[in-house]
């Protein structure tokens, strides 16, 4: 085993300073290109060398007109993505899709962030109510006391944030009518006039400041919110004297602060929270959203009715019900039997049932989750960039997407997904090239290695099948063999999340969702030297991220 972990340690502190939790931030929306076209040669826009051990240059797959001197934050992130493609810390696999079954009785456009906004569902089949079936129910109705998407979908019908996103992920205003950066560590939200909570009281700046503080400060609002690191770097909020505005303070510049508030941070009424206990808040709702709670059956269903005095465009549906069925076939049955209008997470094996039905259709949308095989760079044979690249060349990811995932995925070639800030549109997925893979293995000096790929079971869509396909394709190389080891997710997660690279398996499959639509929130935690979940470190990538996090984002006002 070779260790090249240590020489990057000096780089570590800045990342924490630049982005306090370094695990949930950036400015959303635009992908931005780094110019140029063409590909399939050597990397020049940041690829190659300087990962602290062995230079990876000279074996990259694509080359474009390079960003020679990155200046903007997006450009630094793009160059980092190019470098990460070439240095291949992962076997790049796929971007997961969210696949919905949609009844012909409604019109609805799926969002990339996996959230279902009931306001955007229009009943067209004669009825005026809509029923959604997802895979699980909520973990309580407190909008600031959960971390999972199913609960998000339930609370967001009644609660709103300062900012939000459109279906493509672009930031738009919601309870804030305006936002701007005042100084590096301070941004200002002007609070919209007109919104009222469902109990009839108007939204005030005090409510907004209280809501932000309840998330980021353990001693506010009787809650240690699990969402504090979703508002990464945010230290608190205060009402601006004499104005209908709230200032939000951060450690450092926090370039992704608006992206965070577009994805997280639901607003609650201060007095309502203070006058009720946790059990009440978890079973009742008092937001400003387009629907208000009509009936709550814990673990069974949530029924809403259209809020009569909603400040914005009222919802098309007069009523909304969200229920859950863990079995995908049950969700599809409910859809086809007319008992649900929208079914979440239709797996590939059930897609044809929906497609063949007259009453419903499939609506796939790229999600914000990337699935990859991490390779620990501090261990042989993955300490060799050539070997890591060989693993990428061994894989026919297009075939995996087509045959394992029925086409409901996109091949990836960098940590950042298309549509995210920092995505490098000139980087293509590695093409399968068995001969080149074998040659790179020989060059690495690790021919004859026997690999074990650890994979969780049932955590991600077709995770085991993907891992088996990957292992089988690696096994096809003449000079490397690979087998799959199936792991219970919490056991694997226990090893991956210790914060210590040495606790991780050498080679493992993982998925990572990033609802901030910003490259930094994938790269920092997963492939920088100081990342909580990192399997890789490189001076070059670290410094590129340091530069990026010290610059403002590209949507700094609205």
């Amino acid at each position: 085993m070779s260790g090249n972990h240590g020489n990057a340690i000096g780089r570590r502190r800045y990342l924490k300073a630049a982005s306090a939790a370094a695990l949930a931030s950036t400015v959303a929306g635009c992908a931005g290109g780094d110019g140029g076209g063409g590909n399939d040669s050597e990397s020049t826009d940041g690829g190659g060398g300087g990962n602290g051990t062995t230079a990876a240059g000279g074996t990259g797959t694509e080359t474009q007109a390079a960003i020679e001197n990155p200046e903007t934050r997006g450009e630094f992130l793009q160059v980092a993505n190019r470098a990460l493609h070439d240095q291949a810390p992962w076997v790049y696999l796929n971007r997961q899709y969210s696949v919905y079954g949609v009844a012909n009785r409604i019109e609805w456009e799926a969002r990339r962030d996996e959230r279902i906004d009931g306001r955007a569902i229009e009943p067209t089949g004669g009825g005026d109510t809509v029923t959604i079936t997802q895979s699980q129910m909520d973990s309580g109705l407190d909008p600031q006391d959960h971390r999972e998407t199913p609960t998000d979908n339930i609370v967001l019908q009644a609660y709103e944030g300062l900012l939000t996103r459109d279906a493509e992920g672009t930031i738009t205003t919601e309870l804030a009518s305006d936002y701007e950066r005042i100084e590096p560590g301070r941004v200002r939200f002007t609070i919209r006039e007109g919104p009222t909570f469902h109990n009839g009281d108007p939204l005030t700046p005090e409510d907004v400041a209280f809501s932000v503080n309840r998330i980021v400060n353990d001693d506010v609002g009787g809650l240690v919110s699990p969402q504090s690191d979703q508002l990464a770097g945010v230290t608190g909020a205060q009402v601006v004297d004499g104005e209908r505005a709230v200032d939000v303070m951060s450690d450092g510049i926090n370039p992704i602060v608006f992206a965070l508030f577009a994805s997280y941070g639901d607003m609650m009424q201060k007095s309502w929270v203070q006058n009720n206990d946790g059990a009440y808040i978890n079973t009742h709702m008092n937001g400003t959203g387009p629907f208000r709670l009509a009936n709550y059956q814990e673990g069974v269903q949530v029924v809403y009715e259209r809020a009569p005095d909603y400040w914005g465009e009222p919802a098309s549906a007069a009523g909304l019900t969200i229920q859950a069925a863990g079995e995908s076939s049950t969700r599809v049955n409910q859809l086809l039997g007319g008992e649900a209008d929208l079914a979440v997470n239709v797996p590939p094996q059930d897609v044809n049932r929906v497609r063949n039905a007259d009453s419903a259709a499939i609506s796939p949308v790229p999600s914000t989750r990337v699935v990859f095989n991490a390779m620990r760079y501090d261990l042989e044979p993955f300490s060799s960039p050539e070997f890591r690249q060989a693993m990428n060349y061994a894989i026919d990811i297009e075939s995996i997407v087509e045959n394992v995932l029925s086409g409901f995925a996109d091949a990836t070639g960098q940590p950042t997904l298309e549509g995210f800030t920092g995505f490098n549109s000139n980087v293509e997925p590695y093409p399968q090239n068995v001969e080149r893979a074998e040659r790179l293995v020989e060059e690495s000096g690790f021919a004859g290695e026997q690999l074990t790929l650890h994979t969780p079971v049932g955590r991600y869509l077709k995770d085991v099948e993907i891992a088996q396909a990957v292992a089988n394709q690696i096994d096809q190389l003449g000079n490397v063999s690979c087998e799959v080891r199936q792991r219970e997710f919490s056991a694997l997660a226990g090893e991956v999340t210790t914060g210590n690279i040495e606790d991780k398996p050498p080679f493992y499959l993982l998925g990572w969702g990033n609802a901030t639509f910003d490259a930094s929130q994938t790269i920092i935690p997963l492939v920088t030297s100081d990342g909580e979940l990192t399997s890789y470190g490189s001076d070059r990538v670290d410094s590129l991220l340091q530069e990026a996090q010290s610059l403002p984002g590209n949507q700094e006002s609205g």
Partner: protein
Amino acid sequence: MALGRFVLKRALQGIVVVWGVVTVVFGLRFITPGSPINVIAPLDASAETKRAIAQELGLDEPLYVQYADYVVGLLQGDMGYSYISNTQASSQVFARLPATLELAVVATIVAIAISIPLGVLSATRRNEPADYGATLFSLGGISTPNFWLGIMLVLVFAVQLEVFKTSGRGPGFGGALATLLTSGSVDGLLTWLSYITLPAITLGTYFTALVTRLTRSGMLDELGQSYIKAVRAKGLPETLVRYKHALRNTLIPVITVLGLQLGTLIGGAVITEAVFDWPGLGTLVINSITARDWPILQGSLVVIGVGFVLINLAVDTLYAYVNPQVVHE
């Protein structure tokens, strides 16, 4: 007095069994891979967050302290707090119990209503088409996996014909009854039937087939007994011979099986509840396993175990009452 001692003895045995169930259920968490902290904490949680979660769950205590806390908590009705669903485990478990009981009872009623007449018919018309039909039915019922049967019933009667609901519980029997009593409308009952019919058939089919076979063989056995010949010789009508004498004796073992099967239905409805998304203990068990929600999983298993013990106790008592020989043995 002898019966009282018998029941007391059985009850004490039941307490030991319940203690065993509680111990095994507590131990499950430690023999399965992975820590519950990693399930609760997000992937990017810091070590401090994980330590705080461990402290809140009491996982930083020695094992014997955790065990003692758990048992004492259970005795006070406290099954622990579920951090995944942000609620007391006991409230979730007991909220789901009525749905499971409702399904089990209805499935049992359906099974009794079909199986005993069918078993008698089969026995009294031995080697006739009715017997062949009943035998075929019972063979099919025992051989058919209930998850497959449930899926087929849903596809045909709910998705294609839209006669019944694909899943869910609707208003429940209580809600339907309340509607009937307050408004006199049977709509609530019809809605309830549209929800419960398919899961009840699915859950009860194996049970129906089993009791049909048991009744048939019991009836054949009894009808061949000499006391039956005696009552026939006395000139008793055949109906009385069959139903007053033969069937009555046949029902003693059948009742025992019915009681035990009711316990099995409460604990064994997991698959049926999952197929029909029936909001009972079975679905709760599946969901809690998927989410690694230990307090709720443990609470559900304890309630199922205690239910089984109680039903066994009731059946033993009833059996001892009907057949006093058991007490003296």
